[in-house]
């Protein structure tokens, strides 16, 4: 049986209140031969241009990283979604997710690539004038000019809009003179173009500028000594009366933060793709090592303790990938719909991603934490060698850590995701209130024993999934009722809600992907994938249960708390699968293939 990529228009965050169907989502197994060839080309690129030169890259050998970036440009990897007229490929968003993921294992280069193609290039692509695009995009897309993005300042990190960098219009009105200090600027050391955020005069809000390296008044500190991604240039950049022609202002005065936010929306989900690729590659590394390393006369992969680690990694990875490409395709569909309704392509792309900003934040958080899990257990599987700089896990462990920090820390992204849901609910763009009230009613009514017919694949799991959504609505509804507009100050509750939301989204994605894949390849082929989906659900329910309890302990008291806890107990009930057995079988498949199996 054939399946096809879904073209169903879904609204952002709708998963909270609606149940998607398998045919509504895209699964990575539906990537075309052409897209797969592109993915393979990225692997070949890393095998020839990156992996053999890791030591030189990590030492920041002068000129090396920009030359690799240029080679990526020659292959066409720097403008995947950009229009052909500027040298891009005009491919859809999910193809760029695939390519970003394929380049994910490249460590330092992955950051260079992300900063250049994402936050460095997109502000011009989406907000530039025709002249600005014509002047700069071909240089960026060919890799001739590496780009950097200068938002963060010593005193403006998470609170990015509070930057102090100033821009003053010259008396003749021909240029702005920018003065200020930027920090943690990726690609800073070799960038030829900087997107710089500054406040004009006494403006409250940021404005973005395109700054060429050749403009006067740019100086830099030495490279930062970092924990990981050491081969990625990170600098402090100082602008001292840097003269920027007025025509290099991007978009409108005071609208810089909007650019920053929208570009970060894209950056976040792309980061999720990158960490997914990194994590998948590290799984192969870990499996291979566990097969080769012998102790007590056997491969350590024959030990249950190792197998359970391998299986846990695989399950998380499989689920992450399911959610990432589901969200990517939802973005594509939203963009397509907007284009068809008459919007310009670039604007449609922005709006499409904005619609899924919640999912993007979710995936950034979830992806970076899956990678952290993989590297942590990866080091453990390597034992002492995991701690040695001679083996690949040590660097991977250090490199992974940044993903939870940049593109908005995971705390900021968690709170942002929940905050956006409440905002959309207030605006009425999604109706969370009605179902939340229904759940509240259900709590105090006599429970009807829901009888799913249990005959179809995942019927039981889907019933549980529905209940997880109810859990989210129950806790969110109560928190909103109790704190009203002050909910923003109750960060611990927001974090709990974010965890419930993340796990719900990812669980739904992995169930639906597996269901669709069974149609494509049959039960036998999917046996371990079905187990993986069930195992993911178990983990998710346990996490959600804890997060909900934490929140309930704070938002409700006395009888009300009791009622909520009873509801929670009901909502988080599931049939226990044979966890160890399933994990062993998944591990076995990987051990025998000597690589990640999904």
């Amino acid at each position: 049986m054939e399946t096809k990529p879904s073209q169903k228009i879904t609204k952002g965050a709708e998963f909270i209140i609606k149940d998607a169907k398998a045919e509504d989502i895209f699964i990575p197994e539906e990537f075309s031969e052409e897209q797969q060839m592109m993915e393979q080309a990225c692997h070949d690129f890393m095998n020839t241009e990156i992996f053999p030169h890791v030591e030189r890259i990590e030492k920041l050998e002068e000129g090396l990283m920009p030359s690799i970036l240029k080679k990526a440009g020659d292959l066409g990897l720097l403008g995947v979604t950009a229009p052909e007229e500027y040298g891009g490929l005009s491919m859809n968003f999910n193809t760029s997710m695939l390519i970003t993921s394929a380049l994910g294992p490249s460590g330092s280069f992955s950051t260079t690539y992300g900063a250049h193609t994402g936050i460095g290039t997109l502000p011009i692509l989406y907000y530039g004038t025709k002249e600005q695009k014509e002047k700069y995009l071909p240089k960026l897309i060919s890799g001739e000019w590496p780009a950097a993005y200068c938002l963060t300042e010593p005193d403006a990190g998470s609170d990015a809009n509070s930057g102090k960098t100033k821009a003053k219009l010259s008396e003749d009105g021909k240029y702005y003179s920018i003065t200020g200090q930027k920090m943690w600027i990726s690609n800073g050391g070799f960038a030829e173009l900087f997107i710089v955020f500054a406040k004009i005069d006494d403006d409250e809000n940021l404005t973005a500028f395109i700054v060429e390296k050749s403009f006067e008044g740019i100086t830099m500190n030495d490279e930062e000594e970092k924990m990981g991604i050491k081969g990625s240039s990170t600098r402090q950049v100082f602008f001292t009366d840097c003269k920027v022609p007025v025509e290099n202002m991007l978009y409108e005065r005071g609208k810089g933060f909007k650019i920053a936010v929208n570009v970060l929306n894209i950056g976040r989900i792309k980061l999720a793709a990158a960490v997914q690729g990194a994590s998948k590659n590290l799984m192969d590394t870990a499996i291979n090592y566990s097969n080769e390393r012998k102790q007590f006369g056997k491969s350590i992969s024959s030990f249950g303790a190792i197998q359970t680690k391998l299986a846990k990694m695989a399950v998380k990875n499989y689920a992450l990938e399911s959610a990432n490409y589901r969200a990517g395709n939802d973005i594509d569909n939203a963009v397509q719909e907007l284009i068809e309704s008459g919007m310009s392509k670039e604007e449609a792309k922005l709006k499409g991603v904005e619609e899924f900003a919640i999912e993007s934040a979710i995936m950034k958080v979830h992806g970076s934490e899956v990678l952290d899990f993989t590297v942590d257990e990866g080091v453990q599987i390597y034992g002492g060698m995991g701690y040695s700089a001679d083996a690949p896990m040590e660097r991977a462990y250090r490199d992974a850590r940044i993903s939870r920090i940049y593109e908005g820390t995971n705390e900021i992204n968690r709170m942002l995701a929940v905050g956006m849901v409440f905002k959309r609910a207030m605006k009425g763009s999604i109706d969370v209130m009605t179902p939340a009230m229904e759940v509240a009613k259900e709590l105090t009514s006599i429970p009807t024993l829901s009888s799913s017919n249990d005959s179809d694949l995942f019927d039981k799991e889907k019933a549980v999934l529905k209940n997880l959504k109810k859990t989210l609505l129950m806790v969110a509804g109560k928190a909103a009722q109790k704190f009203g507009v002050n909910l923003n100050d109750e960060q611990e509750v927001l974090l709990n809600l974010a965890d419930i939301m993340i796990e719900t989204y990812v669980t739904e994605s992995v169930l639906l992907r597996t269901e669709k894949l069974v149609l494509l390849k049959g039960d036998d082929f999917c046996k371990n994938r079905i187990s993986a989906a069930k195992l993911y659900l178990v983990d998710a329910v346990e996490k959600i249960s804890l997060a909900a309890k934490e929140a309930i302990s704070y938002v409700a008291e006395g009888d009300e708390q009791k009622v909520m806890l009873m509801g929670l107990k009901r909502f988080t009930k599931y049939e226990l699968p044979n966890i160890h057995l399933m994990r062993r079988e998944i591990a076995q498949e990987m051990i025998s293939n000597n690589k990640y199996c999904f």
Partner: protein
Amino acid sequence: MNILVCITHVPDTTTKIKFVDGKELDKNGVQFVIGPYDDYALARAVELKESLGAKVTVLNVGKQETEPTIRKALAIGADEAIRIDAEPSDAIFVAHQIAHIAKQNSYDLILMGRESSDYNGGLVHGMVGEMLGWPSVSPCMKLDLEGTNAKMQKEIEGGKELLEATLPLVAGCQEPIAEWKIPNMRGIMSARTKPLNVVEAISVEGAISYNSFDLPPERSSCKFFEVDQVDDLVNALKEEAKVL
């Protein structure tokens, strides 16, 4: 100039090979690629196309499942492709198919890998040369053209051999004949618009059949002895390895 590049469709070299009942390759989960040596032949052909101007045709003897591999060759820079619709059962069968196509066209150069990386026969280029009455050179590690004169370098025991021949000729290629090529994205996108002609195979009596396949025995672990443990070493060679 017309260049024909013959490519094989083989399991990726990192594949953990398994067999079904010792009779055939278990293709489940196996990723297939252009034979690594063929990849160099193709890369050289594309280089010659870029420097001298040439039309590059790729040819593969294989069933429909090999088409993604053929399209990859188109993505890398070949202009068109021919798939001879048959299992490549042995070298003589494949050589006859290639020679048959070559006779109908006017190729100046037929390039292929020095051997395929599945059966590693290394026979086809010699056979094709013989069938066409053309010179054939393998392993060809350098190939430059001056008009119809080809200058080549071949690896020989302890050194290299410099050869010259007049086109047309057949070469079984090996690195460093060319810089290995990764298809660029635009090439990949244009591959599907290039012609891929499927032709029927001519009938040829096969010369080889395979009875069964076995994996090599697993390597046992390595034991190290210090210089002052000669007695232990001798003992181990006698008792454990039983070679003394």
